[in-house]
């Protein structure tokens, strides 16, 4: 039997039993579409997180007070007693490392910001001029904090775009004075819109010199230190330098956690990849269900088409040919279902992309291959038994009315 004729024959069967064909296409299609949609979602989430971390700054190393048990990506459970604070002197000492280009110590608090009669409660961030480059920030108007001795507090601030709009409305904010608690600051810059990243929305904060923030919140303790390594290759060196310098300054105690952006990224990447795989696996179960449906339908078909099979054998069809006819039918159904599923999955992806433009929904290539492949393989596997049963039918009995 020629392959073209085999295909043609299977095609005639699919056309002949239209309702049945549509049902299986639907089941297969849903399975494949589910895999595509779910993996696009997972991959979208992964890329979103990766991009978010990427926008934090490059070659970033973050120093947190306290030792995390895992010493890895996530600052988790603290063990032992309350750790020693990180201080500004600790931060400045880090400059000794040759692997480190810039440092940005951070103090964080919340303050009431007054402009005339208007008051707004805002997160207040104390840092240094280097924060701008460490965090890859942009200033929309004016300039960032001036280069100066970080121990001195100049009465200046940079405010977020949203804060500016709320406190000054349409008025020019640059050069105006604001009051936080009992201290006054002159606005020297307005930060460009950057949105949310790592817990801060730069549109909604006020940035003041670190010494001013320390005085404002009456604390010596740093929230964390952002460190920029000189290059990607130097990240590891920067990390160990930080650990060593702080250990020496803290009387030999290893009481800080140093995390690298790379490690955080890699962890998130791993977690989200695993998650995507897991949900893809769950979605693939619906493909197995479709496979069982195919098996059931094929078993019914063998009974329904007993006479036809008997006839084909009487006309000289070999067992192999009968098996191939059923398998071809199943493969055509699977390919059709996969095509429907990929199309529906793409439509779902585009809809999601329109609803959430920030998340880069994209089905990973492996899912685009694995879903149709799984569809075809399940279809073939689940058709093997019915096809064998058909091939074994005794033609005399199949043709008789008994």
């Amino acid at each position, binding site marked *: 039997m020629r392959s073209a*004729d085999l295909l043609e*024959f299977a095609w005639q*069967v699919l056309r002949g039993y239209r309702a049945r064909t549509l049902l299986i296409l639907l089941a297969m299609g849903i399975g494949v579409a589910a895999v595509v949609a779910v993996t696009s979602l997972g991959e979208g989430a992964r890329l979103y997180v990766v991009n978010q971390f990427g926008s934090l700054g490059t070659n970033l190393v973050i120093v947190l007070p306290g030792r995390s048990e895992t010493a890895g990506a996530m600052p988790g459970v603290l063990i032992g007693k309350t750790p020693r604070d990180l201080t500004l002197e600790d931060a400045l000492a880090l400059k000794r490392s040759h692997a480190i280009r810039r440092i940005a110590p951070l103090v964080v608090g919340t303050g009431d910001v007054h402009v005339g009669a208007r008051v707004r409660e805002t997160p207040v961030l104390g840092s240094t001029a280097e924060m701008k480059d460490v965090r890859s920030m942009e200033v929309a108007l004016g300039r960032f904090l001036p280069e100066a001795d970080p121990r001195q507090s100049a009465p200046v601030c940079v405010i977020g775009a949203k804060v500016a709009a709320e406190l000054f409305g349409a008025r020019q904010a640059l050069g105006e004075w604001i009051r936080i608690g009992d201290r006054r600051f002159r606005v020297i810059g307005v930060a460009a819109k950057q949105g949310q990243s790592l817990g801060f929305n730069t549109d909604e904060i006020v940035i003041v010199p670190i010494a001013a923030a320390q005085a404002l919140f009456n604390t010596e303790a740093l929230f964390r230190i952002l460190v920029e390594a000189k290059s990607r290759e130097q990240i590891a060196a920067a990390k160990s330098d930080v650990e060593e310098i702080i250990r020496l300054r803290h009387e030999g105690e290893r009481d800080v956690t140093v995390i690298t952006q790379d490690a955080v990224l890699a962890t998130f990447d791993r977690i989200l990849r695993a998650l995507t795989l897991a949900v893809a696996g769950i979605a693939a179960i619906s493909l197995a269900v479709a496979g069982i449906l195919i098996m059931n339908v094929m078993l019914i078909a063998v009974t329904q088409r007993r006479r036809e099979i008997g006839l084909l054998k*009487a*006309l000289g069809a*070999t*067992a192999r040919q009968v098996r191939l006819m059923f398998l071809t039918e199943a493969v055509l159904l699977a390919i059709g279902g996969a095509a429907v599923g990929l199309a529906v999955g793409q439509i779902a992806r585009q809809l999601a992309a329109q609803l959430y433009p920030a998340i880069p929904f994209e089905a990973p290539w492996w899912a685009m291959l694995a879903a149709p492949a799984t569809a075809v393989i399940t279809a073939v596997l689940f058709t093997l038994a019915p096809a064998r049963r058909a091939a074994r039918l005794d033609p*005399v009995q199949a*043709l008789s009315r008994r």
Partner: protein
Amino acid sequence: MIRLTGIERTFVVGGEMVRALRGVDLHVARGEYLSIMGPSGSGKSTLLNMIGLLDRPNAGTYELDGHDVTALDDDQLARVRREMMGFVFQFFHLVQRLTAAQNIELPMVLAGIDPGERRARLERLLSDYGLADRGGHRPDQLSGGQCQRVAIARAMSMGPSVILADEPTGNLDRRTGQEVMAVLEQVHRDGGTVLLVTHDPEIGSHAKRRLRMVDGAIVSDERVD
């Protein structure tokens, strides 16, 4: 060309042995036109299926063109069937979703004959059996007589040496039955070996050689000229 010797066929039905064929000996020469008659259950269909290689004997030998075919495996039997046997059934057994032309083509499709050759043979078969304008019709759009002619054309498509017809007129009215018999006679005149099972003595009388079966055995074998 067909030589059966001591053919036995037993079925086990509910623990009981049914001897459908009891030591049948039969020799059929090429080009013979032979009818098989006998009461219901006498083993006519079983004999025909045996000759058509759809069934295997429990004992005895079957030589086809001098070759022992009882030793062949299922796939080899299928190939011999495809090349040498043409079946015509009481209930036509046409595939309902296929057109008349597609039904006629089936054996050629199974044999892997290329489409050009198929078309040529199909055209001839359609006109030979008076179906020239019916090729595109489905079985449910054809009369019973037309359906049986499609079935005969299908049986003839591979140019078989033997035509096996099991009550080909059993499902047709008298006039259409005559029509179909005329077609079978034409096959015979063109040199085909025709084996015909029937209940109808008038139909059976078309044949030049008449077998009678009772209880799985051939009880009479007469030739007329």
